[in-house]
């Protein structure tokens, strides 16, 4: 683990630790929902970071199409992949909150919930699309086109939901008469910073693993190509069926 990754890991752990401590020991219970509103400090940052991550994936995809550099494709893929994992957490924590607040795990006529599910399912199709294409270059190009199109859909979808009349889902940040108190804002911002750091850490971690794996493959190919030992089959012994 290089130094910056280690620093990022410690910063993430500290931010999430402080954030959760604020949630349970500092911020007061919300007047309407009481203790159940504590899920807000987990669910909302996760949702914002997941949606933001999809947009970041789209930006990397634009850079990939402009430059043809596979590094940007890897960044786009890992950003989307990490955001999908965050999306799973958003859907599960949201369902738990919905069950506690509304008595149901899911409300189908609520635009916020359904729109997030649509975005999530859209990105779930990224994997089969990507891996259905055997040629690596075409795979990266098509995946980038998908990431840009879907990434543009995210803010449009968000605006459409904000414009729609909400039935039960609260609009915490845009209410004219109040919203969050100072303590709630502080706790939310610390939790948000923690989730953002976690997303970044996981992206960096996975990119490092991918880069290392790529270097191992290069080394394997180089050893296989060594004419001094013809037919040694290093690649076949290490990773059958994946070499060359």
């Amino acid at each position, binding site marked *: 683990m290089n130094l910056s990754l280690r620093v990022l890991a410690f910063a993430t752990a500290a931010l999430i630790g402080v954030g959760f401590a604020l949630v349970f020991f500092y911020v007061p219970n919300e007047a309407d929902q009481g203790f159940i509103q504590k899920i807000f400090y987990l669910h909302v940052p996760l949702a914002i970071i997941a949606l933001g991550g999809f947009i970041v994936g789209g930006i990397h995809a634009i850079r990939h199409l402009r430059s043809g550099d596979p590094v940007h494709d890897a960044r786009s893929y890992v950003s989307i992949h990490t955001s999908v994992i965050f999306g799973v957490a958003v859907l599960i924590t949201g369902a738990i909150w919905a069950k*506690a607040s509304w008595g149901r795990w899911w409300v189908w006529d609520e635009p916020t919930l359904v729109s997030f599910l649509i975005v999530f399912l859209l990105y779930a199709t990224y994997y089969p699309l990507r891996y259905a294409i055997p040629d690596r270059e075409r795979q990266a190009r098509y995946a980038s086109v998908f990431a840009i199109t879907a990434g543009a859909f995210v803010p449009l979808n968000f605006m459409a939901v904000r414009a729609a009349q909400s039935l039960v889902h609260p609009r915490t940040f845009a209410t004219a008469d109040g919203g969050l108190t100072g303590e709630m804002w502080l706790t939310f911002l610390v939790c948000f910073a923690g989730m953002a750091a976690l997303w970044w850490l996981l992206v960096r971690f996975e990119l490092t693993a991918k880069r290392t794996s790529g270097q191992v493959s290069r080394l*394997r190919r180089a050893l296989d190509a060594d004419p001094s030992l013809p037919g040694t089959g290093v690649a076949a012994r290490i990773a059958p069926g994946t070499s060359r």
Partner: protein
Amino acid sequence: MLLAATPALPLDEAGKYVAAAYIVFVLLLLIYVGLMAAKLARISRDLEELADLAESRAEPAPAREEVRA
């Protein structure tokens, strides 16, 4: 608004849901870390094998033959 009309859950009932949400988050994180650890272990094994092979190639030919045998 339905939400505003909904009375707050008593702490003993709300606590279960809040705990469930935070536990799900931690579990997902642990699963992810576990998968990444498995991936890193595989890379480490591959590297070890490649290093062994590179070392065996660096040795003189007769010794290498012995290793290969």
